[in-house]
């Protein structure tokens, strides 16, 4: 297993769109490390030839409904929930850089 360092935590935080203050990084790394080391105990088990389970209860019949769209009763209400908007448009910071 790879060693967990402050750099690991900073790298994973970037992947997860999170950030940590420099002063909390040490204590956070310790917590993170403790759990990662605990879950690594699974490596002691031999799982050669065992197939993975993703869902515990598989049903025989196909369960997918027909792929047809339907109208939501009040779409404007959904847009109203946005924290910043301009008319029916949701406002976000600029994503395309100007020349």
């Amino acid at each position, binding site marked *: *297993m790879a060693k967990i360092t402050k750099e690991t935590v900073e790298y994973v935080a970037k992947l997860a769109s999170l*950030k940590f203050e420099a002063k909390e990084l040490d204590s956070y790394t310790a917590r993170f490390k403790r759990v990662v080391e605990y879950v690594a105990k699974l490596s002691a088990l031999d799982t050669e030839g065992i197939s993975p389970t993703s*869902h515990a209860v598989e049903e025989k019949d196909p369960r997918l409904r027909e792929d047809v769209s339907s109208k939501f009763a009040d779409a404007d209400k959904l847009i109203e*929930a946005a924290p910043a908007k301009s008319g029916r448009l*949701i406002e976000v*910071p*600029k994503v395309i850089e100007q020349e």
Partner: protein
Amino acid sequence: MSINELHKELASGKVSAVELAKSYLETIRKTNPSLNSFITVCEENALKQAAKADERLKSKKNVTPLTGIPIGIKDLLITKGIRTTCASKILSNYVPQYNATVVDKLENAGAVILGKLNMDEFAMGSSNEHSAFGPVKNPHNEKYVPGGSSGGSAAAVASNQCAAALGTDTGGSIRQPASMCGCVGIKPTYGRVSRFGLVAFASSLDQIGPITKNVTDAAIMLKAISGHDNLDSTTLKSEVPDYAAALKEGLNGIKIGVPKEYFIKGISKEVAESVNQAIKKLEKNGAEIVDISLPHTEYAVACYYIIAPAEASANLARYDGIRYGHRAKSAGSVDDLFRQTRTEGFGPEVTLRIMLGTYVLSSGYYDAYYRKAQCVRTLIKNDFAGAFAKVDAIVSPTAPTPAFKIGEKTDDPLQMYLADIFTTPVNLAGLPAISIPCGASKDRLPIGMQIIGKHLDEAKILNLAYNYELIA
């Protein structure tokens, strides 16, 4: 009072649904400032629903066992027009525009929804201390936790703030708080209950279920919320039995397995004694007790804390402050906005789980962690399949200890995770399980017994629990 007793009073006209709702709302007003089990109380809406229930009761048309019954809903289930926070700052202002299927089902049955119940943020926790709205207290002793993550649901039922409540269970979040508050709580088979409108935590594990005062009430609630739903493709098509009508006295011929791995060092002596006494009572009343082994039990918590955070990190990626919920006042780029919003919006435990999940799914680690955990999940599932070839049900403690003190386990995440040691294997295997009270500690804190069944065998575990209630 139980749902059954309240239903009799309502049906006979001894009390009206409006009177009943008012009396529960009064209890909430008096006790919620100290217990903190409700995040949102919806008085106006509840009284409207109660008035409608009274019309149904008066005309004797369309009356169900839940018509007029005051119920609380865990704040992880979305409710149209009623703020749904998931006990998180990131959704503290979120008002959904539709109902979860289970909420629709309860409303159609005529239930009266009193409000939204406190919980660990996004259902991540075992003590209800990880809530952006403050911890919930155990009604049996307010220095102690109510369990979690459905701590508000269990505390509200135990303190008569509502007749019954809905909780959710990803690794024990219905059963463990039910055990710690002296309630009945059932986690149904994966796929039994629709999760449409349940804010997702770990999609291969999450289930919704009731927390109630007794087994009959759990049976009534479970029937009301179960069944296939076109809006949730993981729901099973199997017919929903009338669980309450099927409850009957008698344990003769029932084989109960007792797994040796569930009575280990580290479990409280009082818990072991209470559950062993309960097992003796079941035996005395006709059940056959069989020693069994579930050899991979000790790996379940590690397996769970790879799979659940991995799925959570994907599910919680949607909270970015763009379409709804909290948005940080950031002047930077869109990436800065995402990062700032999420850092401000998520509490420490949710942050830890997102980090763990992101790590185990990150490039180069997938096979060592996530795939490995899924293989171990197969071994755990096979353990249960082997046991169920010999027995009808499995009995164990629900939690290794009675409720612990507020603040006792918050410093070490692992200590908290091990509170779920007997409940997580059940979610990994997708099985139904119920927790029922079976005693109390010397500090008068409740102790719970867990009964685990085969897939879709809810009727059998309810019946076993019902029989224990009769002889307890």
